[in-house]
């Protein structure tokens, strides 16, 4: 080990702080996947017939599909019969009507994770939907939001209370057969968040969902659907954690965003799933399909993600720029430390005229981590005047990590302007020494340099989450060289 990396070394070994387990009786279906299991899940959730049919169709489709192999990821094949597809805390029957009915043990769990569902939520002015394993346990500020006509609830609740909206929009952005993991999710998804912001309404507070995997051998398959009608706007944030376990756990989510004319959706993610230990044992396999549809003219969808967790990340939040003059953004910080592997990026599909997209990706590789950016910018023949700007930067910490960039650009209209810039740099020994010569500790120096590298993305996050993201990055980098 060179002397130059010693300060980084000393800094980079820190524990995953969300790794505890909540002891709780749960209502769990048997391991494995079959039509019977799907019927069982649907029955537990008391779903209408159309939902069950939708699930079964997706399942039959999934059976004909194969897992994608094109990603720059290495892992043993997943045994889909060795996973529990539904697990819910037992105390929850038909869903608590208020926070007072929520199991105190669950409230304590979310408190511990820094997501208190009681008072602080009010102070912070952020509405939270808390999802624990397969079910939503609480949603705050429902009433206040309701006064604006905004629906913010658990997905399963939306299926009961707003079936017409679910039927109208579900699967219209990510159809069940879109890819292997999306098909799996469509068959077995258990819960997630549902957001509907009616015409002309600007959502008065941040909405957020906190996902927690707790039970052993359980996968989490949530589904989020956000609809912003004409002229509406909403900012939404999701956070995720899981206990430390030696087995890998699967998380295969689907997120669909729909923005009608002049609507704006801003979707931010701070992903901190358990990444496995420093030798690569355990950790979450995160296979997620996220896609936004700028269905209306002048609509705007913006993805911001800070990805520090998971053993494997396979995730490409994308935007279909269907409406004329619509805008898509993707801002990403992805960190892979120890043995983590991330293959992430975005697709910007320009279909409407004068559509614009921006891609800003910051990949940080440390330890033996591998970080891949994979991007597609597609300009279809109708997309006159389309513009894209892509910037893709990689930062390497130590000498055993890897960074890869796979940009694809397909342009079918001569008026399109597509720019791509990419850089790769290391945390320089000279930068560290400069800061330390000014009295700044090595730890502070590394986190300052990394945060500087990510600044353009962090400034896109809602204020309080930006602070959290900075801290998280400091934690996740611990032990990254050595």
């Amino acid at each position: 080990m060179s002397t130059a990396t010693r300060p980084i070394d000393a800094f980079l070994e820190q524990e995953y702080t969300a790794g505890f387990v909540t002891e709780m009786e749960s209502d769990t279906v048997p391991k494995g996947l079959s039509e019977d299991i799907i019927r069982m899940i649907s029955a537990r959730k008391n779903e209408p017939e159309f939902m069950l049919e939708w699930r079964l169709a997706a399942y039959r489709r999934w059976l004909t599909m194969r897992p994608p192999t094109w990603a720059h990821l290495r892992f043993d094949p997943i045994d889909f019969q060795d996973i529990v597809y539904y697990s819910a805390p037992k105390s929850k029957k038909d869903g608590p009507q208020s926070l007072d009915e929520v199991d105190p043990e669950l409230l304590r769990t979310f408190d511990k994770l820094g997501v208190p569902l009681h008072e602080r939520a009010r102070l912070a002015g952020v509405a939270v939907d808390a999802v624990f394993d397969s079910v939503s346990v609480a949603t705050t500020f429902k009433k206040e939001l309701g006064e604006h006509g905004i629906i913010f609830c658990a997905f399963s609740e939306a299926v009961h209370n707003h079936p017409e909206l679910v039927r109208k929009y579900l699967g219209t952005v990510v159809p069940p057969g879109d890819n292997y993991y999306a098909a799996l999710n469509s068959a077995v998804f258990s819960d997630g968040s549902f957001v509907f912001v009616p015409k002309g309404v600007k959502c008065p507070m941040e909405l957020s969902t906190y996902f927690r995997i707790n039970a052993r051998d359980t996968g989490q398959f949530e589904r989020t659907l956000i609809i912003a009608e004409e002229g509406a706007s909403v900012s939404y944030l999701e956070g995720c954690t899981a206990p430390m376990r030696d087995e890998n756990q699967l998380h295969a989510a689907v997120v669909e965003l729909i923005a009608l004319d002049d609507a704006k959706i801003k979707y931010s993610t701070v992903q901190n799933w358990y990444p496995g230990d420093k030798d690569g044992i355990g950790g979450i396999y995160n296979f997620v399909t996220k896609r936004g549809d700028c269905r209306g003219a002048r609509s705007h969808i913006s993805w911001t993600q800070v990805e520090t967790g998971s053993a494997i990340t396979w995730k490409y939040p994308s935007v279909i720029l269907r409406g004329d003059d619509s805008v898509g953004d993707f801002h990403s910080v992805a960190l892979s430390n120890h043995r983590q592997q991330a293959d992430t990026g975005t697709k910007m599909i320009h279909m409407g005229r004068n559509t614009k997209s921006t891609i800003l990706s910051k990949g940080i590789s440390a330890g033996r981590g591998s970080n891949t950016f994979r991007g597609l910018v597609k300009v279809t023949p109708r997309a006159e005047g389309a513009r894209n700007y892509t910037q893709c930067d990689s930062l390497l910490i130590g000498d055993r990590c890897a960074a890869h960039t796979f940009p694809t650009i397909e342009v079918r209209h001569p008026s399109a302007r597509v720019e791509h810039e990419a850089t790769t740099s290391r945390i320089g020994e000279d930068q560290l020494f400069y800061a330390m010569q000014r009295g700044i500790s090595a730890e502070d120096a590394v986190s300052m340099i990394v945060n500087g590298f990510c600044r353009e993305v962090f400034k896109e996050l809602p204020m309080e989450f930006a602070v959290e993201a900075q801290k998280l990055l400091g934690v996740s980098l611990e032990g990254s060289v050595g």
Partner: protein
Amino acid sequence: MIKIHNLHATVDGKAILNGLDLEVADGEVHAIMGPNGSGKSTLAQVLAGRETFEVTEGSVDWDGTDLLALPAEERARAGLFLAFQYPVEIPGVSNAYFLKAAVNAIRRHRGLPEYDAMDFLARVKTEMKAVDMKEEFLYRSVNEGFSGGEKKRNEVLQMALLEPKLAVLDETDSGLDIDALKVVAEGVNRLRSPERSMIVITHYQRLLDYIVPDKVHVLSQGRIVRSGGRELALELEEHGYGWIETQPAAPAAQGGRP
């Protein structure tokens, strides 16, 4: 008082410093001159604690403390400041944030209250005026896109903010035009005080017209080969570094050991 005794240092196994002796008393300004490759910058980096250099022999006593035993950041907190020959860029980190972090790290160490944002801004703005730096440099990334002169001013600004006991200026004059040189030199002269020692490293005599040293030392092949007063720099200017080699070896007067 800093006492450097028989200092040997290598980089990648190559010897750069070969038994360097030097003493600088409190309040004194010593100039170190020497041809390229004589070990001037290595001396600066070794004193500041850069780990790419290995000290193989010798000692550095700084007011009774074994300087070489301290890691770089502790030397800085104890009051050692290095003005870099090539100040480093840190993209995305604002100069204001960096300066405040540095000032507060050092104030903490000295048992002084940390500056809050308002106090810090008031202080830094005053110091910036003295080195003729525009306020916008506070909000730009550390040294990123700064011209050579701007980078050097930023170094002098940091020196003023951090109030060191010992300042080492490594070719602070390199790459500066005469106007910038004057501004930088004035900034340095303002900081001269009976409690503060300075080691001014330079290739050219020119800087010493503006920062008048108490003593001048000539470094060659990793050791001080000649010491003298201000006039030594002028002789060097006249005869060039080749002249040193032809002179009978003189004891490193005042600066060296008996």
